[in-house]
């Protein structure tokens, strides 16, 4: 009967202290796949998307 009690923090607790729409907030949402608007977006997707944006920005080919 050891360590039975699991922590029960909700990522929402964290989100309350993060700027909405920030990379940190998006990653936290994606971690739990708790964003009903975009349930399949993974953290890696977010990073890859952001990486692509930055590449385009440096390349001068962004929309």
């Amino acid at each position, binding site marked *: *009967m*050891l*360590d*039975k*009690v*699991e*922590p*029960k*923090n909700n*990522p929402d*607790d*964290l*989100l*309350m*202290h*993060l*700027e909405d729409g*920030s*990379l*940190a907030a998006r*990653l*936290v949402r994606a*971690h*739990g796949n708790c964003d009903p608007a975009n349930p399949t977006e993974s*953290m*890696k997707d977010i*990073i890859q998307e*952001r*990486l692509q944006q*930055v*590449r385009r920005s*440096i*390349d*001068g080919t962004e929309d």
Partner: protein
Amino acid sequence: MAPRIKTLSVKGFRAFGSGEQTLNLPADITVVWGPNSTGKTSLAEAFEFLLTGQITRRELMASTQAEFADALRNAHLAAGEEVFVSAQITATDGKTYEVRRVLTNDYTKSRDCMSHLEIGGAAATEDDLASLGIVLSQPPLQAPVLAQHTLSYIFSVRPQDRATYFKALLEVTDLDDLRNDIAALADELIPLDDPLLTKFDTCVAIPVLNPTLDGLRNTIPDLAGLTAGIKVAARTLIEAEGGTARELLDERLLAIDKILAYRRSKTFPVREFEHNDLAGWNPPAPEIWTRLDFYLDAREKVAEEKRQLVSLFDVALKLPALFELTEPIDCPLCGTKSALTPERVQLIRQHVEDSKDFKIAKMAAKSALSHLSTSANSLATAAKDALPRYLKTPAIKRRETGFTIARIRELLVDPSAKLINPWLGQVRSLVRAESALRRSALAACKIVKEQTAETTDFRILNKLRDVFSTLATLRTTYVSVLDAYKASESVLCMALNEVLDVKSDTTGWQDFLDIARETYTLRNVLIERAARAAIKTELDAALRQIDWAKEQVLNDKFSDFSTLIQTWWERLRPDESTFFSTVQPRKGTKRTIDFKAGLTPNPDRSAPKVRDVIAVFSQSQLHCLGLAMFLARAQHEDFGFIILDDPVLSSDEDYRINFNSTVLTELLKLPMQVIVLTQDYKTWEELEIRYRHLSISTAQLFIDTPGEGSVIENTSDELLAKINRSKSLARGGHPDSRKECGVQLRNAGERFAKEMLVNNRRGKGDTTASLTDYDGKTLGWLCPRIDALLDHDPSHSGRLTAFKNIVNNACHDNAPPGNLEMKHACGEIRFFVKDYLGR
């Protein structure tokens, strides 16, 4: 609904003996009174054992664990008797289950106890308790049981260990995991490791190139801009060497190539390493061999004599006389009469026709032999051409240029010097492979050249086939040896060039030439590197934000928990000038928790000084704080029930009333089932009165004989309660205890007599008869009036009078009777109650 314990049964566990004892818990609140050493703590630990299979007292007293050997099984229990604790528990689903734990092995000096758990008769694990809604907390204090040793535990452990007590509440490891997962993403964004970038960074370090290239690194232009920048850098380099730059980039790079080669060769003839690629070569096509085969076949078909006469036939047939021959004529060669008939001329024509195909085949065969010769010759040439220049240069001339192994060894120091021997090994293999191939190719060439269409035959042809097959194999070997050589040479040259570049002050020039010739790829890798660096920065920032947010979450939790503890503290000790302030993590630590007290001289608690509670709280205050924390944790973790073993110190009369009233009321409001074990009789009495409206259930603990062990008497029966109280007091050695025993016995005797009178009147039909009818009546008034009712035995009247006399002696100022007399009096009144009232 929260789970509720309906009964608890104990047999053979610690102070409990062989008879199964059951505590009924029908109400939301139960109070159990038991004097010292009658089994209260054993009862509390029975709850704990049932739920966890352990008792924490052993665990918390680590230094004395060995002393808990055989602690759970009652010492007086006969061998083979079962030891168990069981409870009827109404679970969250509304159904009632029996939860039962049987002790199978007691603690030993070094080993934990063992037991098995059943729920509803089926084997179960502690995890299954959750299905009943029973919440257990973090070890070591898992069960919702508050005992004296658990109260002191939280303050006696090191501050860094206190986190364990609050783990379930304050743990954020799930958020830590989240954070670590995100950090792992950052780790995956490893900086781009591309040779072109390494070369670019080397070029940036060249002072003359730095102003131009550093700008390109910081702001990456489009391809044209990058090429223009490279072009400018090339011009700068050339001009720094005193040259004049041409217009085109390629021209400038060639110029740098030349300068670099020149500068390097002043130190070492590095160009001797140059070599041509091995020219392509294919084995003779099958068609070549087919042509030769066809020719040999044709040659066999046309006989030699005929072939020798073909020209004669040609001439003869051109004779006009033969052109339209209808009659035999004489042979123009030998003059034989009428020798040339039309049939014979036709035969000559057929001979000529046959020889035409042969001629064509012969031409093709000659061409095939020529092709084979060229092929073998070209292979020999190609093999040599592919050798590095130094292997094609005569040794004497090589030495003149300074290309020697000794010189290479001189230039390369460890660890690069270790590259020389492997390279030499490859050189030897290369020379052997080239030599074998070239010699075979030249030999093949010679064989082919020796052949003529006339002399060649099938045997030679087969030999040629074998020779060319061998050449193909030798060439394949040469290719692989050449590749291996090139790899070792490349490594050697790289190291050598680095040395040469340093000695000739051209470090980074080769890198510049390389990047300048791959501007498109260079730009892509520069963009990729910059993008990854930007994302890494963003991720690092995101992690910092998450760390900060996590800290805020933890602060919120501590704040909430502090508020909860404060609430219970205030219920216990309202309005004190020294008060519990907060529980907080120590700055800069993860697991160290401090408890802070506020000290204020002001009634409104303004301007408090904050100190560690351990330093400023009295034992009583620490005790209250421990209780407040236990209650806060129980509330936060949503325990359905709690067991409080003497939660109020007997010396803390000041706040006992707060506990009995406010604290218990608030706990019941949560709602939470509360089981209070107390040694304080007044508390027991007060709670019975205060919570009578909630049908409080009451019980008492006593021990008649050690062998029998603790006995639970479930009773709200005031009379039996008084007798039990008396029994306990009768054992006391101090005269005051026996006096108090006398008071209790007098009360019990009066109550017995009153109940006898009321029962008698009711038996005669007086339904209004009530105990209150006899309020204020003493034993002296009551005894004579029940004398006639003691009709079970003639001795009873006298025994009651004797009882009254002992009690009177005890209650008066004179020395009370001894223990034996008092115990006798207890037994007498218990006898009358059982015999006449049936209880």
